[in-house]
């Protein structure tokens, strides 16, 4: 705690806080142009200058921590003059195209120019020819750019693409793609979000709507289990289509949250239907005669509860293999840890200084975790161990230790990892026996990880203070998932590691908490909800009856943080919804959101009405979205089994993994997201499978043919097989590594 004064008012700052942060917390206003909370200070605008009694000149409050007893002045005549002069410099030759600029009305430069009363141009410079750059989804206008460097900092420190940089050249300076002629990145669009002027804009959105015409609908991203906060911005579609609303873009509170490309550009996945009574009667009939409902986790928690009620009422089964895998994983986890949810969160990853990621390709499965890892690496100098059979080129700048194990050997790897982390920890006899009886030689040989790798990990862990273990979705579908879960729980409870488990879909956690799921027996008379069935309802793929998509529904999701997140209707859906079907079947609640309060409290839900849930970040970054589920405690029953023989995956092995920004049937139909549904493999894979670049292949057990693409960035014998383009999107069930039979087909 540091005590100092601002304008003679006493203020306290935490250790590590800057004058600006302390001032904002205390409610003082210091103008900034380049400051962004989630990165290190850019310190390029110099608008945040303040005077102190201990320094001669002006100092930058964004990067200076206060000292005890310091007297800071933030609004003297001299500072006002300094700031006004800075704004005058910003306005030199800034094109007067506010009339057409997308940023007009929400522009920092516009606001600050008016704030400091810069009404005419005091200086001038010779105008340079500056061509507008077209970088795919992003357009860059250098003449509008004020070189605040926010985009560069975010791209480097939060996203980790490190794709843009500042080219210095005095008045000719501009933002340029790093080491490349054109922008080569994951197109998360975060640079667009942070741009204070209209220099970086989405090419899809540019010149289609003005900021003030758009209505912001606070919602939650429907694509992965991180449940990022976003705003759907809607306006009437066009003159020809009258009043019907359309989503024009997605924005986020970029100061405190980050969106990936799927969240930002994959928003137009809505379906539309009218109230067709004969079809509705047919759907109700299908539910009545059904033996089971098969559904994907692309639903709200309320809908999951409706399905559960339908199950109880009609005595049918519920199939969702992906959520069931997570459910049984968590059941085993609870046995050993004694609590219902893991301790880690995405935010905790960003705060960590040691991170171990195991069994998941996080950069494509869950970009929020990748961004948190990048933040940790850049800001805390975190050591990151990435354990996976496939190296990830996107993580190469943040990962300090790449550990490649053999596909299928996760159980052995986790057991060895547990032994490493628990080396000097006092454990009970059961655990001690188990760890001592591990056949290290066999496990190391079969998983192909050397002793020295574990030793290096152990050394790294001993130095760190805040540690996180991230368990990816590969292990959820593993045949020995339950035992792996026990080991993960052991590591969490016996060490100071916090644990993050990454399910695949947006509401896997919610479904797993709410529904009693049954083993999918492929029986007859199955109604599919966004899944295969004899009668299919939903919004993904080919459906017999359309139900609203997740951007046309209100309800909640439960993220991997065990955080209940509300989402709202961006585009009104004219047809029937699942609740209408449930009503016809005697499961009665007037609206879907009436179920929010009924969510099972014994699972940690709080019994709060939907309308009482907030969905925003406070001015200082306080997370006011929904609520965090209570952690339910239960008895601990520690027991371990012998490690099963590690399976071998030889020959042509594929890893079911979607490309960047693709997740499910929703992103597959979104026009703003790049579609790359090719089977990608290395030269080694091509030789093993005897196929060449550009050849079409059929894979046994899969319906569609795939084009094989030779990818130089991949190593090893495992190819990446996208599944988002399958009929109902990626259902995410089963173990993600698979030995396949390939057949070439004529092109």
């Amino acid at each position, binding site marked *: 705690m540091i005590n100092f004064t601002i304008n003679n008012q006493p203020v306290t700052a935490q250790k590590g806080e800057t004058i600006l942060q302390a001032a904002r917390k205390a409610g003082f206003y210091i103008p900034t142009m380049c400051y962004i909370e989630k990165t290190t200070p850019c310190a390029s605008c110099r608008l945040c200058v303040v005077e102190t009694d201990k320094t001669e000149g002006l100092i930058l409050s964004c990067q200076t921590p206060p000292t005890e007893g310091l007297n800071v002045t933030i609004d003297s005549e001299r500072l006002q003059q300094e700031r006004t002069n800075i704004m005058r410099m910003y306005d030199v030759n800034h094109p007067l195209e506010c*009339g*057409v600029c997308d940023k007009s009305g929400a522009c920092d430069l516009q606001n600050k120019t008016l704030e400091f009363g810069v009404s005419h141009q005091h200086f001038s410079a010779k105008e340079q020819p500056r061509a*507008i750059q077209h970088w795919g989804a992003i*357009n860059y206008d250098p003449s509008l750019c004020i070189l605040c460097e926010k985009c560069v900092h975010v791209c480097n420190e939060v996203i980790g693409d490190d794709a843009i940089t500042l080219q210095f050249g005095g008045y000719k300076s501009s933002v340029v793609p790093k080491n490349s002629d054109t922008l080569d990145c994951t197109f998360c669009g975060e640079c667009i979000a942070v741009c204070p002027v209209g220099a970086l804009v989405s090419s899809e959105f*540019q*010149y289609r709507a*003005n900021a003030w*015409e758009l209505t912001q609908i606070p919602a939650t991203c429907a694509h992965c289990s991180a449940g990022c906060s976003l705003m759907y911005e809607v306006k009437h579609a066009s*003159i020809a289509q009258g009043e019907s609303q359309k989503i024009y873009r997605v924005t986020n509170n970029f100061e405190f949250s980050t969106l990936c490309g799927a969240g930002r550009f994959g928003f137009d996945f809505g379906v539309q239907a009218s109230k067709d009574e004969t079809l509705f009667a047919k759907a109700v009939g299908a539910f009545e005669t059904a033996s089971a409902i098969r559904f994907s986790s692309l639903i709200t928690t309320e809908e999951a509860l409706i399905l559960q009620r339908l199950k109880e009422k009609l005595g049918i089964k519920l199939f969702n293999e992906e959520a069931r895998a997570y459910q049984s994983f968590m059941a085993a986890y609870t046995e050993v840890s004694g609590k219902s949810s893991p301790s880690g969160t995405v935010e905790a990853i960003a705060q960590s200084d040691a991170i171990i990621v195991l069994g998941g390709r996080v950069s494509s499965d869950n970009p929020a975790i990748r961004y948190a890892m990048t933040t940790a690496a850049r800001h805390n100098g975190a050591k990151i161990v990435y354990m996976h059979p496939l190296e990830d080129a996107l993580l190469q700048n943040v990962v300090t230790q790449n550990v490649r194990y053999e596909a299928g050997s996760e159980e052995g790897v986790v057991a060895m990892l547990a032994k490493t982390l628990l080396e000097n920890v006092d454990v009970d006899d059961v655990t001690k026996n188990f760890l001592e009886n591990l056949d290290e030689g066999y496990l190391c040989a079969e998983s192909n990880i050397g002793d020295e790798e574990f030793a290096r990990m152990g050394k790294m862990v001993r130095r760190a203070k805040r540690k996180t273990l991230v368990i990816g979705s590969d292990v959820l579908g593993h045949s020995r998932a339950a035992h792996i879960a026990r080991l993960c729980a052991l590591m969490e409870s016996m060490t100071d590691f916090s644990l993050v488990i990454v399910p695949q879909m947006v509401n896997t956690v919610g479904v797993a908490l709410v529904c009693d799921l049954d083993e999918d027996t492929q029986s007859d008379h199955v109604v599919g909800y966004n899944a295969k069935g004899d009668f299919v309802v939903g919004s993904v793929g080919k459906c017999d009856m359309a139900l609203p998509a997740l951007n046309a529904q209100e309800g909640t999701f439960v993220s991997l943080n065990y955080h209940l997140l509300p989402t709202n209707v961006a585009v009104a859906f004219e047809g029937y919804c699942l609740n209408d079907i449930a009503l016809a079947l005697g499961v009665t609640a007037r609206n879907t959101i009436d179920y929010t309060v009924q969510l099972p409290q014994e699972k940690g839900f709080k019994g709060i009405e939907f309308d009482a849930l907030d969905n925003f970040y406070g001015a200082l970054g306080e997370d006011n979205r929904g609520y965090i589920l209570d952690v339910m405690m239960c008895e601990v029953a520690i027991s371990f089994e012998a490690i099963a023989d590690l399976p071998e995956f030889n020959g042509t092995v594929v890893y079911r993994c979607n490309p960047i920004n693709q997740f499910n049937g929703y992103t597959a139909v979104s026009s703003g997201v790049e579609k790359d549904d090719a089977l990608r493999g290395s030269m080694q894979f091509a030789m093993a499978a005897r196929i060449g670049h550009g050849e079409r292949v059929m894979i046994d057990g899969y319906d569609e043919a795939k084009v094989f693409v030779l990818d130089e960035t991949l190593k090893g014998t495992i190819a990446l097989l996208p599944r988002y383009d399958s009929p109902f999107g990626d259902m995410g069930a089963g173990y993600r590594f698979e030995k396949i039979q390939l057949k070439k087909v004529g092109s």
Partner: protein
Amino acid sequence: MHSEPLNDRNVSSNSTYYYVDIEEYPTQGWDKFKRVIKRTFKGELFVGLWVVLREMIKFDIHTVQYPKEKLPIGPRYRAVHKLLRLWESGYERCIGCGLCEKICISDCIRMDTKIDENSRKEVTEYSINLGRCIFCGYCAEVCPELAIVHGQRYENGSEQRAHFVIKDDMLTPLDLLTSGQQAEYPGFGSITPNESVKKTPLAY
């Protein structure tokens, strides 16, 4: 005349106000009868009749043959809107800033915009719902480019109350522009179309 004497509303020698001579109102029946007779036969009637007769003989008729003929309208009259073009290049003046849409108090203006192949904002469609428009003139007032103005067409009779006005109806056709028939709004910053107007060099 100076207004000060008028402000003094007391009738006096200084004030401009004075009492008008008003004939006594008749109270007796006989007096009333006398007034009727006097007014009826005084001959004022024939003065007016003579004017009509005189003009009829001279064939100097002032009746406007509407709708074949129309009276000229004051330049500030606010009738159905027009979208104008730049004199020098023929390009549309509208830049699609959306201010008219925003300021419209009856919310009857809509526009569709997009980015064109030259990375400029293009207005693809523009419509005004004349069934709702109250012709307040705010759109023309706010327009930074003098692109939307009120024209002279005041006849809004139609089979439907809410006929749309679409962009093609409002925009000056190019042939009228080249023949110099685009009526210019004589507002602030407007230009006088003559040979001194030259094409703006947009590419340099």
